[in-house]
């Protein structure tokens, strides 16, 4: 039976710019996914707890403050602690290529989508990769 993909879109940290997050939420909705949008200034604990309660397949994190090397690894660590490693985590925002490589290689972030990314690519990536770990 085909399950509807559920995605938590969250903004960790202190920056107050959520236009990008809203564009993504809208694109995922139009692709037939259920998007839970939690609003601004979420702590890693709040994000992981919301992901747990909502039983999402994917967490999309938008971060523009520059604190991604602190906050994103922390979220991955909390997910591991909760045995929620099967949740696909993708990030977007202002993240340098170098940092993106570290986040993907060492901190469990599946993909990083910077400014100018095509929403179709993001939808495609999520469709291909969501729920694989969960259903196996």
């Amino acid at each position, binding site marked *: 039976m085909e399950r509807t993909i559920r995605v938590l879109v969250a903004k960790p940290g202190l920056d107050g710019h959520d236009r990008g997050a809203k564009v993504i939420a809208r694109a995922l909705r139009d692709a037939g996914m259920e998007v839970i*949008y*939690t*609003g601004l200034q979420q702590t890693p604990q709040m994000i992981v707890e*919301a992901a747990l309660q909502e039983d999402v397949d994917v967490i999309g994190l938008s971060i523009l403050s520059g604190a991604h090397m602190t906050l994103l690894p922390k979220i991955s660590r909390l997910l591991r602690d909760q045995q929620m490693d099967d949740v696909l985590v993708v990030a977007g925002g202002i993240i340098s290529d170098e940092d993106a490589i570290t986040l993907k290689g060492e901190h469990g972030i599946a993909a990083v989508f910077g400014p100018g990314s095509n929403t179709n690519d993001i939808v495609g990536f999520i469709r291909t990769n969501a729920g694989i770990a969960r259903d196996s």
Partner: protein
Amino acid sequence: MYIPDLLPRLLGGDRRALARAISLAEQGGPASRALLAAVYPHTGQAHVVGITGPPGAGKSTLVNALALEWRRRDRTVGIVAVDPTSPFSGGAVLGDRIRMQPLGGDPGVFIRSMASRGRLGGLSRATADAVALIDAAGFQVVIIETVGAGQGEVDIARTAQTTIVVEVPGMGDDVQSIKAGVLEIADLFVVNKADREGADKTVRQLRSMQRLGAPPADGWEPPVLPAVATSGQGITEIVESAGQHAVHLRAGGGADARARATAEGELRAAVQELAIERLRGPAWDALVAQIAARQNNPYSAAEELLRGL
């Protein structure tokens, strides 16, 4: 998570098991029905409170304020917040959690967002199942927030024990308030944003609408309570009034009638789901094609399918 493990973990209050169980219920199918059948004897403990009203009336903010007040009274609170599914893409943006951030991090609170998934009436097919699962997991109050509802979305009254209808000032003349529908299902009226102009008038209109009719058969006169959910004004009165309504129901003022209506709704939904699941197949598809081509009609086709059951 292996499904037989879900039940004991759920009954023990494990939040992850509860979250998974709700997903299973949303998906439907035999495994979901088996789980819900096993959970059913453990339900019926929670006070189920429904919140409905037009979009933008402040339902999410009110739910947040009510949940905080119940937590101050040491009651654990589960919340099911329903938002509409797009009729075009099947997707949804569920934004009720934005207004509930103050509840984050409290282990005595569990919030689940649900998409209506094509169901009209303000709830989704699996909303009652989600409520049952949260109830079985031990939460003492379960709040259901419907999609923004106008006039006809009255499903909530069959699922909740206490239904709160939220209105705001300036939503139309007093004839609106004697129309059939949402206003008839209220056990409590809340006039939110009561710091705005016209709030007194809205309160007066709702009260005088009630006086136009005969006194309620079950002896419960729905109070009309002004509130400002963003500042917490009027919230203790609502929580107390909801508590009094629960006591009133238990004292025989209609609890049996409610329970019967809820039970009938649940049975109807289960029969519908099971029947459609069993009837779907090549014959179903053939009849759909015939109806689309106007060679058959839905009524004769339904008769034909049910004869084969």
